[in-house]
């Protein structure tokens, strides 16, 4: 992964009349990185990305995208980036291939429409009117339009919202391909599993502020929520007294005497010790589950809200 910063944001602010949508946020996105912005509706993530796309002026702070100021060098910036908007449309009677050729003509550099149609699995639909496409096909076309100028930086604003799981997986695959091609992607999403799977780093935004930033794993580790280990043995444990396993914060045994639950801050070490103990006790293991805090748990912990609030 290239480490040169592609996006630099310092003390960024956005105000609409009396509403402060973005309250002085700082972050940077490196080249080749997939950077996720997570937050509930109205958190300020769309305002932030629209400022970076050159679509809205900022109220305060500094922002540089590919070396351009999004306020002052809009045209140059738009020529170099790819954008997949949350809500957009095309004229109903526009054909798929025509749309790619039309939008391609707006840029100084563009890819061939045939290449994009094949890549986005739209080749069979190239002569279809936009109004006849399904939701998934429209979204694939939106992504093809975002790629029409062969951009090194893409902004994908909730690209899978409202799509069925099959199409969502196809789009995930495409984003992974973009990552392999060393393109930088800024992604906003409501789907935690999408962020966990695709993003190198995420920033959690709430009420216009970044409340946490890091790799999904770092955020999970930083969480105060402990990992939970669930163990089921073949025969009941002798007695109810459980030893103080290292790093275990709380242990409990169910009434059947076979189901053991242990909360730990370092689950790998605790689990290893439990296994040793069970072996020493001569007990056979029937089932074991380790549940780490998900990004969703971290999100709820930090914001007190559900992501889809």
């Amino acid at each position: 992964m290239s480490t040169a910063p592609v996006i630099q944001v310092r003390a960024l602010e956005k105000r609409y009349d009396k509403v402060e949508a973005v309250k002085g946020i700082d972050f940077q996105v490196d080249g080749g990185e997939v950077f996720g912005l997570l937050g509930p509706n109205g958190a300020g993530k769309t305002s932030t990305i629209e400022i970076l796309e050159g679509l809205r002026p900022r109220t305060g702070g500094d922002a540089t995208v590919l070396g351009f100021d999004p306020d002052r060098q809009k045209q140059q910036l738009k020529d170099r980036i790819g954008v997949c908007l949350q809500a957009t449309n095309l004229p109903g009677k526009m054909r798929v291939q025509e749309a790619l050729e039309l939008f391609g003509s707006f840029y100084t550099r563009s890819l061939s429409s045939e290449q994009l149609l094949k890549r986005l699995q739209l080749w069979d639909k190239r002569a279809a009117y936009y109004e006849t496409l399904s939701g998934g096909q429209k979204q694939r076309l939106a992504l093809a339009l975002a790629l029409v100028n062969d951009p090194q930086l893409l902004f994908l604003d909730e690209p899978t919202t409202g799509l069925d799981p099959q199409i969502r997986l196809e789009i995930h695959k495409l984003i992974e391909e973009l990552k392999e091609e060393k393109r930088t992607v800024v992604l906003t999403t409501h789907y935690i599993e999408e962020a966990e799977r695709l993003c190198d780093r995420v920033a959690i935004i709430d009420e216009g502020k970044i409340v946490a930033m890091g790799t999904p794993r770092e955020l999970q580790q930083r969480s105060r929520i402990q990992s939970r280990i669930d163990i089921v043995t073949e025969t009941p444990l002798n007695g109810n007294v459980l030893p103080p396993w290292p790093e275990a914060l709380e242990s409990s045994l169910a009434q059947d005497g076979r189901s053991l639950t242990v909360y730990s801050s370092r689950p790998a070490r605790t689990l290893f010790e439990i296994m040793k103990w069970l072996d020493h006790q001569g007990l056979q293991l029937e089932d074991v589950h380790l549940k780490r805090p998900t990004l969703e748990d971290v999100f709820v912990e930090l914001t007190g809200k559900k992501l889809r609030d």
Partner: protein
Amino acid sequence: MKEYLAIIAMDMRLALRLRAVIFFNYLFPLIFFFTFAAFMGRNTDQIAYVVRMSVTLGVLGSGFFGAGIRAIQDRELNILRRYKVTPITPAPLLVGSMVTGWLIFLPYIVLLLLLAHWMYHMPLPAHMLDLLIFISLALIAFRALGLVIASVANNMQEGQILVQLFYFPLLLLGGATIPADNFHGVMLTIHKFVPSTYLVDGMLNMMNKAQGLVSNLEPVLMLVITTFIGGFISMKLFRWEKEEKIKGSAKWWVVVALLPFIVIGVWESFRH
């Protein structure tokens, strides 16, 4: 330049795929023409009057509904939002709208003049090219006014109200439907302020008095100035997204676009 050509080519394709465009640009005005010609076509002067009425109806329809309402529709449907993320400015979209309207409308004018000539023996204008240029100027000027309305209307409802507020007075008071000889007193004064008056007067001079563009510099100038002012205002107030609301006071920009007609109306009123 390539974005201008691409948008014009695309707009043309889209327009020709819509049955409504064909109906309102060709079939409806032709039905209108033949119906009125059947009632009034006793002499060539009356046929020329029906031709002027039909052209005015088409020019106003193309300007206010074809350009104005269509632009609001594209914004309301989030179509313009897709263009906003590309490096283009509003200029190619506005120019594209004007050129497409002209390319679609011009064949109708030629067809109408030829039908009036062959079927009702109306003499062809002495300066045919001048007349076509004049009607083209009018079409572009009224499309510019339609785009100004689209720029100041916050939604389709507001747009419909504004369009109706202009369309009917311009149709009825410009002398195209009710002949200007019938206007007296206040109505005659209002008639002088109405933009469509200059379109109808110019056509009358070119079709009935064998005049060319040079003899009609006043209406030509008015239409050219309106095109520039309308184009400038619609460019300045252009909005890509329905969420970008414009203040109510911005609607006064429509009056600014009509300034040439207000000035000439005042001048004409004092002159007479």
